[in-house]
């Protein structure tokens, strides 16, 4: 603006302001009348709305009934809870210390000659309980057949896997021997049978030692 003020021209910005002030916006008398009429109409409508009694729908009869029923339900529930809590205090939690049964499983994939599914993988499990020193042996198959090899050896049939059958104190060495013999003989008889890595086909002595090491953790 310094430039304009310094100019010696015939018109400066102050003159522009004065000239602008001389300009009168076009009058809007018609519009003013229209707006006034519009606002008066709005005012009349507002007043008539205020004078009119608002319609209030009558309260349906079922509402108090529902409210009463809800009140009864809530009250009865509260009374029941109150009486229950006062008359039957919570029982003390029974502390039961249970020794976690360590379960050592020796998986022996076997198949028996009479089995209708020779390729069916069976799993012999030798389970030891450190508290009772009891050892249970049972057989699991994917089909639920629980007739195990080792129980058969000892003349026990129809041994179910649940619950495990406890043999009590018995000669574990004998069981291991029989299992190892059975394992090796099956491997020979069924060369296409894929044995698990955990129970490789081993010479009798080695196999027996391996099971011993596992059971030694009991």
């Amino acid at each position: 603006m310094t430039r304009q003020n310094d100019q010696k021209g015939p018109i400066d910005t102050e003159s522009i302001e004065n000239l602008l002030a001389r300009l009168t916006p076009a009058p809007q008398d018609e519009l003013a009348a229209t707006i006034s009429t519009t606002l008066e109409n709005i005012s009349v409508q507002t007043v008539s709305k205020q004078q009119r009694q608002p319609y209030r729908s009558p309260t349906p009869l079922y509402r108090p009934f529902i409210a009463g029923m809800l009140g009864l339900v809530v009250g009865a529930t509260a009374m029941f809870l109150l009486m229950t809590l006062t008359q039957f205090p919570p029982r003390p939690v029974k502390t039961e210390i249970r020794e976690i049964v360590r379960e050592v499983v020796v998986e022996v994939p076997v198949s028996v000659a009479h089995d209708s599914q020779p390729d069916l993988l069976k799993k012999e499990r030798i389970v030891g309980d450190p508290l009772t020193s009891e050892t249970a042996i049972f057989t699991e198959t994917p089909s639920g057949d629980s007739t195990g090899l080792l129980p058969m050896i000892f003349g026990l049939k129809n041994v179910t896997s649940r619950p495990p059958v406890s043999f009590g104190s018995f000669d574990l060495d004998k069981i291991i021997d029989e299992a190892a013999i059975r394992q090796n003989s099956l491997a020979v008889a069924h060369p296409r049978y894929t044995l698990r890595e955990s129970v490789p086909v081993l010479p009798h002595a080695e196999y027996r030692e391996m099971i011993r090491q596992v059971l030694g953790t009991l």
Partner: protein
Amino acid sequence: MKNDKELKIKELIDSRLAALVLFARQWRNVAAEDIVQEAFVKLYRHEPWPDDPVAWLFAVVRNASNNYIRSDKRRKRHEERAQSARPWFLKPENDEQGKADDLAGTLARELELLDQEYREIIVAKTWGGLTFEQIAELLDSSRSTVHRKYQEGLALLQERLEGEI
């Protein structure tokens, strides 16, 4: 009109209506009168009464004009009717030398051709009677920016008017 609010609106109509219509026309808006009327109706219904009703009206008119002009259909209709647009100003009166008529008329035409960023400030200041603070709030800008643009607008008008002479 009976109550206090209606009296205030009546005063605003008497004093600011022409300036508000002129302000609305900055957007080349054929619906300027409708927009201003709607602004007054909004003011009538507005609760509570605004602290600065003049600035409030200008803000409402500005927002409504911006919204109106954004519509493509309305813009086309505007272009069709632009030729029949009403004059922004009354014909200026002559002074003793009879020169003011020409100058002011030229200035009015140049004002219409001025960029809107300058023109709306000049209109709001000169005929709306708004202060620079009020205009800054209206445009969501700073007072110094508004003042600078006002001066720049005047300088542009000055240059163009000198070119016409």
